[in-house]
Structures are given as structure tokens and as C-alpha cells.
């Protein structure tokens, strides 16, 4: 038996622009282990794995692999040391095929050097995917035409194909459906028994408990501790991450549901969803659950006018309305928080002020000129109420943590004083404290009479917050449950088509 563990990161420190991201972290893990790393946003998880994968250089400390010091100055060095990472942000090349992405840099050539043997290449890529149990992906399609969850699988396949000794998975489950997640877990078990070290980073603690052999908790750039899942529970783990016990996770709320505010009748959009009908009342939180690709997001975008529907009727407070653009929707009092804040929620190169005021510029404009006092006062109030950190409104949004970025997007829509607020995955990729903040804001809004449509793939969130739950599957509305009727099992079964 070896005395040392396979991977040892010793006294690692790193600072960016004067902020200390890691302070003397010592971390070790061994082959044949699934080691989860958890912590709030900004705790230093990303920095730690970026250092290990050679993407970022560390200021001090040393890294030993199998007892020997190594220098991981670049991703290439990390590859040579047998380390592969699958990041949240994909590193795929969109217009190249699945085959080319998986075999990038090692495409098989035919008799002539420099000429690709395409038949062999496709076969090899297909073999890799099949071997991992990832079915249903055509290796000849450009990656850009794949769904996000399939892209994630290609990304994982690309990393695993290299047979790494250390595999880093950074939030791999964020875009996967339940079914796909099972396959991923099976793969992780398979790699583990083939004596690979898997570092698993996730916000979802239930996953971590299911799969990890050990859990290391990071907070403010330091390691709080390493525990075994059987020796702890979610509550204690959260306490380690946050440094305090959180209050009520889902605020208790006496639903004071009023009259109908939004009604959708027979809404359809070619290739996305068909014949969707539901109604939403004042002060109601209506959950909408479905697997990735079930059409939830498209329904939301259609109601908001981002992708107008082909057929169907939308009524707002009893009046039939026509929405051709997001502008129409906003003017009528409908707002949409989109699922991916970086893609279409934020202007990262602009300030907190610019982002929060963006959707309500006409309200503070006279003769084309902005009333800067008014702008600042309105933005400042939102920053205080939502406790956005740092509170300097001229800071660029790019510099904020994920949780604070999400609060900025939310603040933008709160300023519109919408009657109907559609929230598409409002807590994706945010830390637990921010999550609780967002739940409380939602609850307050509902109390004020706003109708909220909550789209989420996190079942506890749907069950904890909704007064009623709709379930979508393959572009159709397939179920409706009251709060009392709904349970994780029922919703999942319904979303997977096992329950009518």
C-alpha cells in the first residue's frame, strides 16, 4: 500500500487583482475515488480546478502527482500529467462535427498523411460514445445542432476518450435530464472501478451525497473540512459551506390567490410545442416542470414575444392581446427572466447600473436624455433591497459572482413592475444563500399580487415554491397538480411519460 495519496496539492495560494481566491489550500485525493468539492460561488472551487487543469497558474505552493512534484503551467502540461477537465463552459467547436470534436488533434489518417480517413474517424467516435453508453448522438452532425445536454455528453466523451487518470467534472449535471444523469453516474462508477480519480464539482448536494466517496468543503478560499457522506447530512454540509445555519429555505406563504391575470389558449409553435393551455392567477406561483427539451423555455419565450407563437391566444386580465416582440410584452406588463443569464440576460461589459436600468430606460428619459439622479436612485434602491455585492453601481457586471449577477438580472425585471413575471430557472448556478434570497423575493412578489410562472428543473424548488404545478413533455402540457397532490415521484413519472 502506498503511503501517499495520488494527488496532493500543497499550500496552494492564488490571487486575482488583489483578491485572494485561494489561501494556502492543501487538498489530496486518491485514485479510484469520487471526490466532491462543494462550496458557495466565490469559495474558490473554480480556481482550484483551473489550477489543476493548467488553465490558471498558482502564486505559491506545489502539486504532487504520485508523490512527484509536477508543474502544471499550461493545459498541455496537465494533459501530459493525465488530467482532463470538463468545464461548465463548453470547449467544443460549434461548426465542426461530433467526430472532429471528440478526436480533435488525433484524427486518423489514411494512406496519405494529412488526409483524414473519415470512415475510420466516424467509427472511432461512434465507438467511444457507445462505450460510454451515450446513445442517440449522430457523430456526423455539427455540434452546434445538438441539444445542450448532448453537447455536454460530447464534451465528457472527449475528455474520457483520453483515458485520464484524473477527471474533473465541473457542474456536469446542470444541463442533463434525469435519464442522462443516471447514465453519467454509471459512467463515473465505471471510471472509478478502473482506478480513475474523479473530482466532482456540483451545487446539487443530493447528487454529491449519491455519488461521492469524500466531500471537501471550500469557503472563502480555504478548506473547511473533508467529510464522508455517511458521516454527515445536507444540513450540516450547508452549515459548513455557508458558515451559519440558514433560516426557512422555502418561505411559508399563505397563498392569497386572486383572479386570473394571464391565460394561454392553444398556444403552438412549430417544432417546439403544441396546444398549450393554462391560466395563471394574481398572487399565484405556478410551477412548470419538464425535462430538458420538453419545450418549457420555448413556451415562456413565446408568451414574452421573443419567439412569437404560430397559433393560439393569450389573454391578459381578460383581454386578448397580441404580442409580437418583447417590447409589446413589457408594455403590457409581462417580464421574462431567461434561463441563461450570460447568453441573454446580462450585458457583461456594462455596469450594474446599465444592466438594472436597461429594461426601463423610457421611464427615466425626457427628450431622449436620461435623468441620471433618478436612474441612480432607482438602481441604488434595488441594489440595497436585493443586497447585491459589491454595492458600487458603476462596477462591471462581469466582475460579480454568479449569485450577484443573477440578482442584477432579477432587479432589472423587478423595476418593470410587471403583473406577470416568468422566471426560467431563476436559481441556476447561484449559491445557496442567494437561492434563499430569491425564494423570499418571489414570495413577497406573489403577496403583492404578481402572477409568477416558475420554470425549473429542480424538483425541490418546484415543490417548495409552487401553488400549482404544470408538467411538460415533448412540447405538450401533460399534467397539472395542486400543491397537495404533487410529489417528486409523480412529477418525474409524468415528465418521463410514465404517468397519464
Amino acid at each position, binding site marked *: 500500500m502506498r503511503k501517499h495519496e495520488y494527488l496532493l496539492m500543497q499550500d496552494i495560494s492564488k490571487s486575482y487583482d488583489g483578491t485572494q481566491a485561494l489561501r494556502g489550500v492543501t487538498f489530496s485525493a486518491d485514485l479510484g475515488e469520487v471526490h466532491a468539492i462543494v462550496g458557495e460561488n466565490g469559495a474558490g472551487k473554480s480556481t482550484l480546478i483551473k489550477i489543476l487543469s493548467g488553465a490558471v497558474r498558482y502564486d505559491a505552493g506545489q502539486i504532487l502527482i504520485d508523490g512527484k512534484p509536477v508543474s502544471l503551467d499550461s493545459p498541455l502540461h496537465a494533459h501530459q500529467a493525465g488530467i482532463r477537465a470538463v468545464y461548465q463552459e463548453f470547449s467544443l467547436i460549434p461548426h465542426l462535427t461530433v467526430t472532429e470534436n471528440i478526436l480533435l488533434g488525433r484524427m486518423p489518417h489514411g494512406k496519405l498523411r494529412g488526409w483524414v480517413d473519415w470512415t475510420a474517424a466516424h467509427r472511432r467516435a461512434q465507438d467511444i460514445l457507445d462505450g460510454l453508453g451515450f446513445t442517440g448522438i449522430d457523430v456526423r452532425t455539427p455540434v452546434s445542432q445538438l441539444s445542450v445536454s448532448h453537447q455536454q455528453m460530447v464534451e465528457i466523451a472527449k475528455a474520457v476518450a483520453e483515458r485520464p487518470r484524473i477527471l474533473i467534472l465541473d457542474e456536469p449535471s446542470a444541463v442533463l435530464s434525469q435519464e442522462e444523469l443516471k447514465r453519467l453516474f454509471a459512467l463515473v462508477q465505471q471510471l472509478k472501478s478502473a482506478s480513475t480519480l474523479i473530482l466532482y464539482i456540483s451545487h446539487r448536494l443530493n447528487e454529491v451525497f449519491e455519488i461521492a466517496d469524500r466531500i471537501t468543503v471550500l469557503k472563502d478560499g480555504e478548506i473547511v473540512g473533508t467529510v464522508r457522506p455517511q458521516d454527515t447530512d445536507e444540513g450540516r454540509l450547508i452549515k459548513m459551506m455557508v458558515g451559519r445555519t440558514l433560516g426557512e429555505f422555502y418561505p411559508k406563504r399563505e397563498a392569497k390567490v386572486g383572479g386570473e391575470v394571464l391565460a394561454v389558449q392553444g398556444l403552438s409553435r412549430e417544432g417546439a410545442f403544441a396546444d398549450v393551455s393554462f391560466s395563471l392567477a394574481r398572487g399565484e406561483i405556478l410551477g412548470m416542470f419538464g425535462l430538458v427539451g420538453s419545450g418549457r423555455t420555448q413556451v415562456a419565450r413565446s408568451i414574452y414575444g421573443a419567439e412569437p407563437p404560430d397559433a393560439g391566444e393569450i389573454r391578459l386580465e381578460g383581454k386578448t392581446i397580441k404580442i409580437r416582440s418583447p417590447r409589446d410584452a413589457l408594455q403590457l406588463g409581462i417580464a421574462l427572466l431567461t434561463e441563461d443569464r450570460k447568453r441573454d440576460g446580462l450585458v457583461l461589459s*456594462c455596469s450594474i447600473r446599465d444592466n438594472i436600468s436597461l429594461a426601463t430606460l423610457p421611464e427615466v428619459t425626457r427628450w431622449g*436624455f436620461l435623468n441620471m439622479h433618478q436612474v441612480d436612485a432607482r438602481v441604488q434602491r434595488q441594489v440595497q433591497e436585493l443586497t447585491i455585492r459589491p454595492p458600487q453601481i458603476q462596477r462591471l457586471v462581469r466582475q460579480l459572482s454568479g449569485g450577484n449577477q443573477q440578482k442584477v438580472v432579477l432587479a432589472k425585471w423587478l423595476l418593470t413592475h410587471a403583473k406577470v413575471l416568468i422566471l426560467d430557472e431563476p436559481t441556476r448556478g447561484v449559491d445557496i444563500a442567494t437561492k434563499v434570497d430569491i425564494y423570499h423575493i418571489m414570495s413577497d412578489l406573489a403577496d403583492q399580487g404578481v402572477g409568477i410562472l416558475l420554470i425549473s428543473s429542480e424538483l425541490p424548488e418546484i415543490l417548495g415554491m409552487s401553488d400549482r404545478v404544470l408538467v411538460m413533455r415533448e412540447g405538450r402540457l401533460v399534467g397539472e397538480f395542486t400543491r397537495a397532490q404533487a410529489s417528486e415521484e409523480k412529477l418525474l413519472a409524468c415528465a418521463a411519460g410514465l404517468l397519464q
Partner: protein
Amino acid sequence: MNASLSVQIRQRLFTRLRRRWADYGFIVAFVILILIAASFSDVFFTQRNISNLFRQIVTNGLISLGMLTVILTGGIDLSVGSIVALSAILVSGLQQQVPVPLAILAAVAAGGLVGIINGVLVAHFKLAPFIVTLATMGAVRGVVYVYSETPQTPSDPTFRTLLGGFVGPVPVAAVIMLICFPLVWSFLNRMAAGRAIVAIGGNQEAVRLAGINVNQHIILAYVISGLFSAIAGVLLAARLGIAQPSVGSGYELDAIAACVIGGAVLGGGGGGAIGTFGGVFTLGLIDNLLNMFNVQTYYQQILKGLIILFAVLARRKE
């Protein structure tokens, strides 16, 4: 404990300095240039040379303001040089038939029209700005030659004395340009349309979903660029007293260079009027100094290229 604190403070100071340096590196470069000029030349600080310098940067200054607006939306406008020629030759030719104010109006309107064409093609037809403005750059140049193959001279003497003249030691054209910079600054920082334009370059889809008419604002940016280029053309005709159909070729590169030196990011997401002014000034100063020392134009081009690279390198993020 204390030591680590002081290290932290030093680090923070260092990064702040570096960020400042990145933002205003051109100012430092600019001061160094002045010092060199002052120590080697006794002509530089003469009133005549300074006012000359200002006259020389008017054209690039105005074009750069339009270019900046377009770059902020994430686009680029290669047609500016051709628009300069179009408006210069129109204002000179038309004043033989119509009163000068009308000729100026027509010339500036022509620039705005090209801007509308550029903007509509980019915004509504979703064509790449580089391609669209490359096409109009060629087409507009053709229109200029169709209008007149030979140089046109402004016939009205007041046109030259008024727009090509001086208030005291300051050239009229320079005054116009110096007024335009704060105007554009206010537009970009204090008006709703300006903020929208800046945001579009950062994330077009987020702006659309915020209920803002993205296409309208993109068109507006190209119109602003067309108008500023046309104004530059009118002032150039007044200063030179002649409008060649070939005038203005290559001007787009100087304008792009000025914006980039001033901190603009091609593809959108950075840049402003103050920085652009610094960029225009730096480029003008280099030309002025090297002319004074009788350095060949070829070397001027090499040096300009180096300065652009230097400016971009200094601002490079890790």
C-alpha cells in the same frame, strides 16, 4: 499578519495602477511624445504649428466619432473614406448651381443616406458589417467618379473663408470638431439611445429582450457615422479648396486605429469618446512630429502600426 496585509495593499495598488495605465496608456505615450518634440524642436510650440496640428486632426476626429459609435454596436464602417469623398465633391460641385447652405445640406444628407443603407443591410438583413460596408465603400467611390471624374473646386469664396478659416488662432473646423466630442460623449453616456448602443455591442439579445428596438439603434449608429464622415468631407473641401474624387481612401484605417488606441474593442464591449479623442490626438501628433523632423511617410506608417499594437498590448487582459 502585518506583512501579509501590506503585501495585499501593495498588490491592490499595483493592480489599480495597472488598470489606470491600461485605460489611459495613450496619455502617457502622448506626454512622452510632447517632451521629445519640445526638447528637439523649436518649431513645435509655435502657434502656427499647434493650429496646424488641430487642422490636421479635424478629419480623423470627426470620422472617428462615427466609427466609435458603430464599433460600440459591435460593427465596423469601412465606407467612411468614400463618404468623405462623396460629400466633399458634392459640396464643391453643387455650390456652382445652388446656394452654399443648400449644397452643404445635400452633401451631409448624402452621408446620412449611405449610413441608412449600411444600417438597414446590417440590422434587417443580418449581414456582416465588414462585408456590407466593404461593398458600399466600393459602390460609393464609384458614385463619386460617376458624378465627377475630375476634381471639383468650391466656387463660393465665403465657403472657404468661413469653414476653412480661423477664429483668432483657432481653425473654425477644429472648433466644430471640439464641440462634437462632448456632444457624442453626452449622447453615449447620458441619452437612452446611446446607452442602448453601448449595450448592444455587449449583448444584443439581452438588449432585445429588454424591450429595446435593436435594429433601430444599429441603423442610428451607421447614420451617425455617415453624417460625421460627410461633415468631415465638407470641412476638408473648405480647407483644401479642392475636392479630388480619390480623396479619403484609407481614412477608415486611421479612424479604426484612433478608436482602438482609445480603448475601443472591435466587436463591441468597450470604448468611449474621451479615449477616442486621445487616440485621434496621439495619431495626429505622431504625423506632425515626424513631418517636422522630415521623416519619410513610410517610417510614419511603421511607427503608427507599432503604436496601435502597443496600445492594444497595454490593455490586454490576462
